[in-house]
């Protein structure tokens, strides 16, 4: 029986020592936000944090975790950096299919936690272990910068809460326009 500290909660699991953390999370505990892409530390889809550092959980035997704090995509939003990264990801719509994005967000959050204002080269170095088959890299780079600086240098998406259609005697697009102005301000 192992006791794991996952997203601030203690979980006990009865699994083989050599079982990779990825499968303990997904198939035993039921935290399926962490993804399987390759199983050989090539794609980064399975990235989680151990004491804040990004690791590939598909090759990490669960017995090697010890009492280190595990953070997964389900829990990363609890930290300020994680929340900013998620918000930037939505604000400029990084996501396409989304399957790689748990891992991307975990890598990006670990980067920013240690390097709050990364250069392009630092972003490339920290993120090059994460494959995105949909090719969202351009926006990943932009979103990391936006999360780091708060500056909106590229077009922002219009959040759904605010986007509303109207017709008839109402001026078309009024709601949309006001949102845009707020965003610009």
């Amino acid at each position: 029986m192992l006791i794991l500290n996952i997203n601030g909660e203690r979980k006990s699991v009865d699994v083989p020592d050599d079982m990779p953390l990825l499968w303990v999370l997904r198939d035993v505990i039921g935290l399926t936000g962490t993804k399987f892409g390759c199983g050989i530390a090539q794609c980064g889809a399975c990235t989680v944090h151990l004491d804040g550092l990004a690791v590939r959980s598909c090759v990490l035997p669960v017995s090697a975790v010890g009492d280190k704090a595990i953070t997964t995509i389900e829990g990363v939003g609890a930290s300020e950096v994680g929340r900013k990264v998620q918000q930037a990801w939505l604000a400029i719509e990084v996501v396409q299919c989304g399957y790689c994005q748990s891992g991307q967000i975990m890598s990006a959050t670990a980067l920013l936690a240690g390097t709050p204002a990364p250069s392009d080269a630092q972003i490339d170095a920290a993120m090059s272990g994460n494959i995105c088959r949909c090719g969202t890299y351009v926006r990943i780079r932009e979103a990391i910068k936006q999360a780091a600086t708060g500056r909106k240098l590229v077009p922002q998406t219009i959040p759904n809460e605010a986007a509303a259609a109207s017709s008839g005697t109402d001026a078309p697009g009024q709601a949309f326009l006001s949102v845009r102005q707020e965003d610009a301000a």
Partner: protein
Amino acid sequence: MNTRPDLLPGEGPDNPSRRQALKTGGLVVAFLWLGGGAKVLGRAGQPGRIEAGDPAFAPNAYIRVGAGGAVHLVMPSIEMGQGAYTGQATLLAEEMDLGLDQIVVEHAPANRRLYANPLVGEQATGGSTTIRYCWTTLRQAGAAARSLLVAAAAARWKVEPAQCTVTRGVIRHEASGRSAGYGEVAAAAARLPVPERVVEKDPGAFALIGKPLRRVDTAGKVDGSLPFGIDIRVPGMKVATVRACPTIGGKLLAVDDARARQVPGFVAIVKIDNAVAAIGEHFWAAKQALAALDIRWDHGPHASFSTEQLFKELADASRNGTPILAREVGNVDGVKGKAVEATYELPLLAHTTMEPLNTVVHVRPDGCEIWTGTQVPARAVDVAAKVTGLKPETIVVHNQYMGGGFGRRLFEDSIEQAVAFARQVDYPLKVVWTREEDLAQDRYRPAYHDRIAATLDAEGRPVAWRDRITSASVLAKFAPGAMGKNGLDSDAVEGAAELPYEVPNLKVEWVRHDLPEGLHPGWWRGVGPAHNVFVVEGFVDELAHAAGKDPVAYRRDLLQKNPRALGVLDLAASKAGWGAGTLPPRVGRGVALATPFGSYLCVIVEVEVSPQGGIALRRAVAAVDCGVVVNPNTVEAQIQGGLIFGWTAALYNGITIRNGAVEQSNFNDYRMMRINETPPIEVHIVDSKEVPGGIGETGTVMAFPSLINALFAATGVRLRKYPIDRSALVQGADALKAVVTEAFDEAATAVAKGAA
């Protein structure tokens, strides 16, 4: 429950925009054949009972309004990352005067009658058709629903519907100050007769269409809460992973599971004709157990097959096979001028969707449930019925969000296999393929051997153009009845038969050369055009060079009668600063232009090649005219992602086969482009009122020639194959060879002298 037929005007076979759309190629033609076309064109049939429960108002297959006002929109095209759910929801919400935050999107159940893509006649997502067909279908559906709801409110208030307005799903009559939510009038609206005609909104009144609205599916993709197919967990479920015979067409002979039984969590093995699955309490147990199996295969008749052999056969078929005419204009024979010719070769390619293939199946005596992400839900029912012998109406497919499709999930082989395993056990079975299995058992984009030739007049313009394509046929496998009367596969020549350029004499032919039985050709992002545009645009670049002309100026000259193509060429050239300033040595820019899937694109790429042949992409500029834009954010994302998808293949990919088995196994030897290799990619969208064109596959189509042409500009080396051979790009590769040979000759002479 409302049971009125669907309202789908404008979708008759005589509709010109539909005809135009249909003209565009193999995948569309394939589906048309599969669905029997005409049957489903006019009306999408009765609304079915769906997961939203029993809505008060369900005027068609896409819209459900509950008495409480909840609006559920059922998405006929699936979501695999391309933004289809947002695009479809936007069209419906626009006409219904709703916000995207006021709707819930739902995966469509498997139901051809209700959710067939009327453009292609099958419940399928592919060929960049979603917005092209939904543009009319869903706006009509939304407008019809709105008109009924407004009419119900107006009748209740005894006022004219025209005096009512709608904002965010609330109907108002200004003069009397009355208002009602959609939910309040839903039941009354359900009793009203369907209007003969509904008028869609004037584009000037669009509140949602054309805006960069946030996607409806992304919030749950940044916090891990949105489930993909692979995340489905059903009570009592066990997990399996599979090994099919790695040799093409081979069979399973025998399995010894003695060692697998020692694996903690091992449950059982199940076998089918050509594969074995190990079942465990979780994936890890299944994977360990599979690795511990002692498997004997019958490697079958293709155990010595190789890709070298395939390319030899293709080259031979190109010369000695029977060409099928795809298109002929004028007469290419006897045209005088400067002759240019070239041979291009394209490899087999894998899809490697980020989410490995997976299916959860529960087969019971009286029915079967399937949870999976598929581009063809109705075909999933077909194969499950075939394998289990159950009646189709007892089979339920719960479609899921997909971690990429790219054409792979247009094939239901992994679903059929999962059902074949699951019917042998009485618990729900989740079958997950490893990445290794994914690469070994793909439906590969076929290999091509294309010989292309042109005759140039005194100004260097092509006055005769011949293209002979040789390949296997995806269409013949996927939908044999969709093959042309003369045996033509329209996908094999899509992007080659119709050129954007003016060429007075043209002959395009195809020679069919099948792959060995058991090696399956498949649709791959960009389909026909991703293959042909590489060849055509690489060759046009060769012609420009032969004519001593600038590649942009050369194309401009040939596009004088094609204003939209000319528009994107000029836009990309000006944004890229084409021709302005000088570039450093071994830096070059390449241009590519094409008109795939009803859209117009020009891409310019700048590369730098190191003396050792290393390639760095420095910048890319894309200009796109895809008609009316539903969501500019999606267009940009699809172009960026599509380019990276294509560049990845050009830079690194090619499935090779030795001794009848695929050699690549995972991302270590089937490489993907990574962020550090990705250049800035600018996307410039032309403001247009034309009918929407496709977008999801266009970037991929443009990627290959833009990169290859840039490499030529940087190094003077013309590449006609990929994955790109870096050794051909080594600085002074020829000079280097000469030096080495000389040195060798000298040494040999010295040795000979010494011996004398």
